[in-house]
Structures are given as C-alpha cells and as structure tokens.
C-alpha cells in the first residue's frame, strides 16, 4: 500500500493508473482493451444495472473479448437507466441508455465486435472541466 506524502506520490499514482488498469489480479493495457462503465447509482441499480453488469462480465469472457467492466456513479440520465459507457480502443466513449440484457447482447455483438452503432445512444450534452 502506498502512503501518499507528497504531490509526486499523487502524480505517480495518476501516471501509473493511466498506464495499466488492474482488476482482480489481471493487468490491462487501457489502450488495448474494451472499457465499459456501468452506472451503478441507486437509480441505475433500481432499473437493473447490476444484472446488466454481471451479464456483460460473464458474456465478454465467454466470447473471448478482453474487456474491463467497472462500476461508476449516476451519469444523470434517470429517464434512460440503466446506462452504460463503452469505450473501444482508440475511439471516443459512447453512452447507451435503457440497456437491458437483450440490448447488452446487441452492444457486444454489433458495437464491440463490429464498431456498428445501434439505436439508443445518449449524446453528451454537457461540458466537462
């Protein structure tokens, strides 16, 4: 465990985090894997986001796709929960809304495998800082 004592310590964590992402003992190169974030705020969970997250984890492994599925907070689109963000290597992230198991399957087969966008994308309508 790192004991953070200086700004350099913080910067080191930041740098290393950008280079590799470690989940359950496995190292991932963020440049090479598919990264999926599932909105697991209370509203997401209430609409079934946990089931979608489990489905994505299981199915991506079964279908031999190197992917990192993580949780995140509420993306703000309560009207379109569950929401997930998918980032293919070298591409901008895309947010999909109203993702149930069927839709998640479609996202894997069509977007993740073939880069084909499907209905139900939520456009980013805010500025980040």
């Amino acid at each position: 465990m790192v004991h953070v004592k200086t700004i350099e310590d913080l910067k080191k964590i930041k740098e290393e985090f950008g280079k590799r992402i470690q989940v359950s003992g496995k190292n991932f190169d963020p440049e090479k894997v598919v990264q999926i974030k599932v909105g697991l705020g209370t509203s997401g969970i209430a609409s079934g986001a946990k089931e979608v997250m489990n489905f994505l984890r299981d199915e991506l492994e079964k279908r031999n796709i190197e992917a990192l599925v993580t949780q995140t907070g509420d993306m703000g689109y309560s009207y379109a929960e569950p929401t997930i963000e998918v980032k293919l290597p070298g591409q901008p992230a895309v947010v999909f809304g109203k993702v149930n198991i069927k839709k998640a399957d479609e996202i894997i087969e069509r977007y993740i495998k073939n880069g084909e966008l499907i209905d139900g994308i939520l456009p980013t309508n805010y500025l980040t800082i």
Partner: protein
Amino acid sequence: MAKYRMHLLVCDGTTCHASQSESVKNALQDCLELNNLENEVKVVSTGCFGYCEKGPIVKVLPDNTLYVKVKPGDAEKIVKEHILNGQIVKRLLPTETVAQVYASEGKTPFFDKKQIRIALRNCGFIDPENIEEYIAHDGYQALCKCLTEYTPQQVIDIIKRSGLRGRGGGGFPTGLKWEITAKVKSDQKYVICNADEGDPGAFMDRSIMEGDPHSVIEAMAINGYCTGANKGLVYIRAEYPLAVKRLKVAIDQARAYGLLGKNIFNSGFDFDIELRYGAGAFVCGEETALIHSMEGKRGEPTFKPPFPSEHGYLGKPSNVNNVETYANVPVIINKGADWFASIGTEKSKGSKVFALAGKINNVGLIEVPMGTTLRDVIFKIGGGIKGGKEFKAVQTGGPSGGCLTSHHLDTPIDYDNLIAAGSMMGSGGMIVMDEDDCMVSIAKFYLGFTVDESCGKCSPCRIGNKRLYEILDKITKGEGTMEDLTKLRNLSEVIKDTSLCGLGQTSPNPVLSTLDNFWEEYVEHVVDKKCRAGSCKGLMKYIIDAEACTGCTACARACPVNAISGERKGPHFINQEICIKCGTCMEKCKFNAVLLQ
C-alpha cells in the same frame, strides 16, 4: 459482417420525434439505399441532444458534424454532399458563426452546450470505490496544495474570492462561513457535512456521494485545515445505504493511503472523518437540529445565534456545509478562484446541480451554470413536457420553495432571482407540472409534508401549518369560501414571521406562491366549485349522458355504493348524494356515456 465507415445519428428525443425526426431517419435510409451506401453508412436513432428548439438534429460520425432543423427533404443533400463528396452542408449548421469557424478550421466547433459539470465532474465517470481512479482525475491534489503551499487564511481567501455560496439552499457565502469558524478560539472544532437531503424528489447529494465520495472527503479535510478542526462528521440519512457504503469505503481507502489520519502530506495536520446517521427527519437538515440529532438529542432546532460556527457540536465551533458545496471546493483550489468566478451571474457564481423531476421528458440529474434560464432547463435540457402537454408551473426549493409559472420561464436561475420571483434555490429539486396538476392540491401536498415533518417545538409551525392544511383541504373538497383565501394569506404571513427555524419560516411559501401566481385557480375552486385540472375529486361530478346510455346496467352493477339507478335498456342516472366519485362507472361504460364535469 459489414463494418460501417460512417454513422448518422438522428435525435429521437421526444421533442425531435414530434418534429418528424422519424421521417428524417427514413428519408436518410432511403437515400442511402438509393446510392448503394447502406452497407457503408448506418442511420441510428439516439436520445435527446439537449437542443430541442433546433430539432430534428442529425450528427455525422466520425467527423462530428452537427446538423440542425433537418427536414426529410434535406436527406438527399446530406447523403450526396457530405457522405459522397465530403462537403459539409453549411445551410444546416447550427449558426452562422459555426459555419464560419468551420470554414477556417475545417471542423465543427463546440456548440451551445447548456450544461457544465463541476460538482458532478467525476460522477458517472470514475469508479467511486477506487481511490486511485479519483487520484488519476487529479484527486487530493487540492488538499496537497492547501497543506503544503497555502496558509489557512490564504485558502479561505481563495474560497471567498471564488464567490461560492452554500448549495444546501440558503446561499450563505462559504468562504465567510469558514472564516467565522476559523476565528473562534477553541481547543476542539468540528467540520460537519450536511448530507441530510430531504426535499421530495431531490437526489443531488445522494448522487454525488454515490458517484464521487472522495471529493467530499477531500473538501472536508481542506475545511478542517482552514478552520482548525481535526475531526469531520458526515450526517447522512440511513435511507441512503449505497451512499453510506461508498462513503465508508472511501474513508477507509483515504486512511489506508495516508490521506486521512495523522500528519497528512507531512504537514503536521491531522484529520479524520466519521459518519453519523439520521433517521430521515426533514427538520434535521436545519443545522442546529442536525447537530442536536448528532449529539443523540431530539432533532429539534434551537434559536440562532449562537450559530454553529461558535457553539456547535458538543458546544464546540462547527462548520456545517452541504455535500454539493464541498464537492465544488477541490476544483476551486485546483483551477483557481477566478476561473470559478467567471462562471455564473454577478452574485451567484459557479454552477448548480438540479434533480429534474415531474412531468418532464428527460427526468434526471443536471448541472447548469448559474444564470441559465428556467426555459433552457425545462425545454432544452429537460426535453419539454411529457406527452406534449402544456407547461403550467415549476416548483423549486422543495417544501420551502414556491411554484413559478410560464411568466418566470425566462428568469435566470440564481439565488436572488428565485427569491425575487417568490421561490428559492433550495437544494436543487425541480419539479415540473403540467395542465393536469391542480395548484391548490400541490400546495396541499407540500403542506401535508411539512405538517408531517414539523418537529412540533414552536406553535406557529406546529399548529399554524396544520390549520393551513385544513383550509386547503376544505377548498379542494369544494367547501372553501373567499374568506378562507384571506385567512390562508394572513396565517401564512404569521407563520413565516414567527416560526423558530427555517422549516416553519418557509413552509407557507408553496401556499403564498400559488396564491400569487394561480389566484384564479383558487377562486374557481371557491366560487365556481370547479377544478380545471380535474384532480380535486370533491369538485367533480360524474353524470350519465341519457342519450348515449343504452341501459346495459354495467355501471350500476359495478358501482360500489349503489348510487346508479335506472330501468334496463333505459337511461340511468347517478345519485350525487351517494356517489363517492371513484370513477368505476366511467371505466366500465363501453358507450362513453359517463361524463366527468
């Protein structure tokens, strides 16, 4: 399988849908097929872009060109010029300026984004249970900067200069509050985070704690450094189990990384945080009641002064700020007071998170710069009213706020404007109402809430609100008089003036604002015994149209109180004395003979 080289995103948000986005989508699809492009380019429908007034919207990927007000007839031009020849259709770009920038830079510039995420910067982006991801997003740098580069007074000056005001609703200048607590001399001080979010329909603070708990922890530590406190307490409602869990995980991680505990950043500054649970009483959002509840006493407010900054938790100076206020602090330190102060209006700086709810298409969490108009929030970001109905009112500020009408739609949202309009900022709940909502019933709903939540300590609030509720109830039953309307106003004024704490001082606001803005509706209820929204049961009458009635007896058999009589195959009628207005007859009638008056 085909891999597409281009995608056309067609907005299918409710407003665009109403302005024929589907025909646009079909026209694009037909046009692509005509040019044998259907295997190269795919048309996809999307959620709302937030530019509803300029719909239908079409966005071309991967070059990110945004076309607005696209008509089905424009499809051919987009396909032929843009897709086949790589030429932008300038006529369909959002504005002249965008077209000009495009001409000089070859790409569509940023256009007209209504939202900016400051407090929500990490919410929905990072894993809230992974401290390293927060650090990777510049987390804890602000704390490091404060502890190693600034004196406490310098940090306070930065917060003061930024113009940050309390996001819990009151709008008290945050920097000033910190300074007052810092100046009081004491052996022990406390930093308190008010996470007792209680307004009906509000979930801003919950989302921040669930999505970005470390930002609150970091800001509380900064506050501790400024005020001279080494102990932080988060007062959070037990009904927020996920927020509690994520905060706990975050606190444990921060301790493990040495970001909470002894000698943080080798500065000699110690700070740690504990959680205190609330049982979900609305009044405990009031800071003195909150402190009493934390001390294990009854959650009742006491008179101020003394303010908590002098005499707070366990009698020690305590700085109380709300979750969203804290979430803004690390950004202000990192990006500077001037940057923060450049956003917003003259007296309200930065942005505000709102929970949009009610009869609106895009229910959700939004964050807009102060000064954004209600119209932009409701009709652009919110995507307008559900089912294409008429906008009637928007309630801001929860049970302490008021209802604003279509006259206020162009009011820029900030602390002072909302108060001038007869409502208040509050913590950020925004409930939109349409033509089907009765304003008297809405006022009654909020009063019902305050009657339930009043702690009962002072009589104006305990008795006065109950009487207000009873008068409103009488009016919705059709038994009100014009005298009652005068009573409502007088009593409201008295409760406002004489209540002990913020709860009572603001609880008549929903009544006063609806009296001011929807006077005719009150008069209709009292004089004409009519509810135009059709929601006050007491004022409605079910009748049977004798000509349409076939005498099938279905309604009479279904009526639970036997109020319907008549001969088989002859017209039936409803005895109004017996009728309980349940509406069963209307549901059962197959001939639309039962009418509601």
